[in-house]
């Protein structure tokens, strides 16, 4: 039969297309294609490296600050800048809240409708829904009246016959397994989560001026002054507000997100706890430095690599082993597409040779994506919450082990169940809880530093480009909600000579490499059953479990072309 095409893949960030070959009701091969390109790294060339984070942050507006922080880390690394402790802890608070908020939005607003049938919620008995909700959590919004109110609101919406964003979905598909009451409960929490996410993210506005696109990062620290005696600086009132937002986040994750995750997963273990993971290799750069030293040992979520699903060994990570292929990407290398290049040597030229739009199918034997194919030590790897939780688990992070074991125990699932679509979704929830528990400690640390009289928010030295060496190169690494993220920068004569980001969705959504090896999305879909190829909800389940972010993943660098035009000299 012809390929099944899903384009656009919705409920993600960006423009993703999946083509799948189906035989005997199962996917036997799959191709992942990013269909949009902007060229932000070309745009970065010749700019002031202190401005880079503002540009890089616009790579993605969803995980909005991750490229900003990674960018300033790259420049700080290049110039040998150590940031003050206040800046370090402010960044940790911002980053932790980003993860929690992003994970909540992903679960309820991007992923849930793969498992939750909204139309079935209309048939639910509010009293039984209340009983169900109260059996799994002591979250207060659980009365019969409350669920009846939600159901009435939904009925009023549907009665007009206009379903808006819910129209034309795969409702009634046999793959939906939840009883009406669980569906109604999930819809109610979908609406609650919409309200919650905008409240807890106000922590970003307090420390970062606004969200999306925070505006207080600096190469060398933060632009958010700290002074308990000033109304124009971070003071005690705002610490209280941060604590309140952290409390709300934790309570929701503990009492709504995790119970919902466990309840929904319980209905879908077969087959989703045993399919949907394809590569077996997992990479994490680690995140949440306890101190600004840059020592990987200070990372609360550890750095590491797991190969062949072997949790008995965590391999060290070395950024020099990252390299990108373009053999199936719309770029060309001057010395041939067969050899991958390290980001510092990054040399890429856009070369679209795909079909002229409008088109029906891609030429998947040739080049078929704007994503490159990054490989670690020449291996395809998966990144993201599952990789982080596996690396933390295998590294012996006590609380992560407890939480993973708790979730597996509740589901009555063996550890092997982690290597699946549901494992990926569960790992994201576990991580949200782990970070929601960690976040109050970061805020306490900030308050303690303030109390001790600490006021330094910026390194001070090396702000002026005239103090920089003629050439410097650096790497910034971090863990975005969607996985391992790194930026590489080469600074020459005070301006950016080369800039490259290798981002989570490029790892996960990459097309095949020169050796024909699939990326994580492609590999994860093999063997997935498809009940109705015209309504491929199964493809959405697995692809959404990765939480794709395509705007992040499409990029370009070019070490040579354009230099004559944009050669600049700021100093």
């Amino acid at each position, binding site marked *: 039969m012809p390929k099944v095409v899903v384009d656009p*893949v919705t409920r993600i960030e960006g423009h993703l297309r999946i083509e799948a070959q189906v035989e005997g009701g199962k996917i036997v091969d799959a191709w992942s294609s990013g269909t949009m390109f902007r*060229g932000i790294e070309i745009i970065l060339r010749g700019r002031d490296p202190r401005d880079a984070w503002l540009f890089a942050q616009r790579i993605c*507006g*969803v995980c909005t600050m991750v490229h900003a922080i990674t960018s300033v880390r790259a420049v700080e690394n290049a110039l040998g800048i150590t940031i003050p402790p206040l800046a370090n802890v402010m960044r940790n608070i911002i980053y932790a809240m980003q993860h929690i908020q992003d994970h909540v939005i992903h679960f309820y607003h991007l992923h849930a409708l793969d498992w939750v049938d909204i139309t079935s919620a209309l048939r639910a008995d509010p009293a039984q829904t209340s009983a169900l909700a109260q059996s799994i959590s002591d979250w207060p919004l659980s009365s019969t009246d409350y669920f009846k109110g939600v159901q009435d609101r939904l009925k009023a919406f549907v009665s007009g016959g206009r379903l808006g964003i819910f129209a034309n979905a795969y409702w009634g598909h046999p793959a939906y397994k939840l009883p009406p009451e669980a569906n109604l409960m999930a819809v109610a929490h979908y609406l609650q989560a919409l*309200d919650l996410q*905008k409240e807890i993210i106000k922590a970003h506005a307090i420390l970062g001026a606004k969200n999306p696109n925070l505006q207080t990062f600096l190469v060398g620290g933060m632009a958010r002054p700290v002074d308990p005696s000033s109304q*124009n600086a971070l003071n005690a009132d705002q610490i209280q507000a941060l604590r309140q937002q952290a409390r709300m986040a934790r309570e929701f994750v503990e009492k709504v997100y995790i119970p919902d995750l466990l309840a929904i997963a319980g209905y879908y273990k077969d087959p989703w706890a045993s399919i949907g993971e394809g590569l077996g290799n997992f990479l994490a750069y680690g995140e949440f430095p306890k101190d600004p030293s840059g020592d990987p040992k200070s990372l609360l979520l550890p750095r590491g690599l797991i190969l062949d699903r072997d949790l008995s060994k965590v391999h060290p990570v070395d950024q020099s082993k990252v390299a990108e292929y373009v053999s199936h990407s719309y770029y060309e290398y001057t010395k041939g597409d067969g050899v991958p290049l390290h980001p510092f040597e990054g040399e890429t030229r856009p070369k679209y040779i795909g079909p*002229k739009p409008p088109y029906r199918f891609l030429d998947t034997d040739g080049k078929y994506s704007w994503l490159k194919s990054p490989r670690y030590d020449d291996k395809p790897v998966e990144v993201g919450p599952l990789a982080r939780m596996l690396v933390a688990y295998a590294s012996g992070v006590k609380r992560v082990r407890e939480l993973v074991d708790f979730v597996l125990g509740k589901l009555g699932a063996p550890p092997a169940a982690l290597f699946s679509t549901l494992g990926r979704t569960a790992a994201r929830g576990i991580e949200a809880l782990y970070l929601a528990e960690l976040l109050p400690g970061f805020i306490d640390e900030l308050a303690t530093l303030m109390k001790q009289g600490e006021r*330094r928010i910026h390194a001070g030295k090396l702000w002026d480009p005239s103090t920089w060496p003629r050439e410097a190169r650096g790497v910034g690494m971090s863990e975005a909600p969607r996985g391992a993220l790194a930026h590489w920068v080469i600074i020459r004569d005070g301006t950016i000579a080369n800039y490259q980001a290798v981002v989570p969705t490029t790892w996960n959504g990459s097309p095949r490499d020169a050796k024909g090896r699939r990326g994580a999305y492609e590999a994860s879909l093999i063997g997935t059953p498809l009940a109705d190829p015209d309504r491929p909800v199964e493809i959405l389940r697995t692809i959404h479990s990765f939480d794709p972010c395509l705007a992040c993943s499409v990029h370009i660098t070019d070490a040579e072309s354009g230099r004559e035009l944009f050669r600049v000299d700021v100093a």
Partner: protein
Amino acid sequence: MREPTGVLSTRGSTQKSLEEALAEHGITRRQFLRWCAMITATLALPARYTRRVAEAVMNPDRPSLIWLEFQDCAGNTESFLRAEKPTVAEIVLEVLSLNYHETIMAPAGEASRKSRDETVEKEKGKYLVVVEGSIPTKDDGVYCTIGGESAVDIAKRVCGNAAAVLAVGSCAAFGGIPAANPNPTGAVGVRDLVKGVPVVNLPGCPANVANVTATIVHFLTFGALPETDSLGRPLFAYGQRIHDNCPRRAHFDAGQFVQEWGDEGHRLGWCLYKMGCKGPVTWHNCPSIQWNGGTSWPIGAGHPCISCSEPAFWDRASPFYRHLPKVAGFGVETTAEKVGLGLAGLTAAGFGAHAVATAIRRRVSGVLAGTAPAEGGPPGERGSGARAES
């Protein structure tokens, strides 16, 4: 601003009373009227319009909205999710029929395109469109395709048959970051591509959702887009310079400037001019409405404004930490005024070849240095240079 008295409401009669409609949706009247009053205030309309706004918003024939994403980062979508009054749930369930929005819609692939295309076919000339992201025009539009169709073709077809289009965020309004030098993909804003349909620009990186919802509500209430400046930006949101409404303005006038990050002046909230603030050349209501439900905003948090609602700010306002140029013989105040007027003139000139060349040159020597006030013609009194007196 002028009251929109001459505009006919398209929403004269509703089948149900406002009270009945509210009861049906489980919204208290007090709560509802409160956010209608807020929107009325954001739109700079007299309070007596609150009732009319309320009726328009609760119209049971929720008008259709198609939200298109092209060369975007979903930052404006995220901003939309932060909506406070009304919330995004209220907008989606009660105010509009959001028929297509890739980031949050339930269907995918062909089924999702059906939601979009049926709206275009069956509601020609009646639906609203939001565009997020720029549109790449180079090389037959291969740099952005959705369902195998180029963004260029989708934009022309879907926007071209709409009642009105909101270009939300600086990318959709002016090309934004993809159009920054050297604009590798030939990225443009909506107005450069779509003709014959009213397009309002709501720049910002991202656009502030309070301005987006207020613009939508204005359209629902009066059947027309709000009055704009010559760059297509609503006057209610972009009619005043940040510098003129900045709570730190007194420090600017007094010559009290932050000199280093975290110094005493920084902690006390002094002026960020010397750290690179572009507030004097930026037209936006950030100081008054702020962000995230009024929690904070860039200057308030201690970082300079980067001029994110002005055309080509990525080239013209960078390097972002270089302060605005000082002209010999004038004090700081005069200099900033002159620069503000100069940029207003320059932005009015649009994307002329000279403007692009200037932008390239500025990457060398500081973006706003040498800004020529002559290009848009000499502006009139302060603040009126870039406006269309419609």
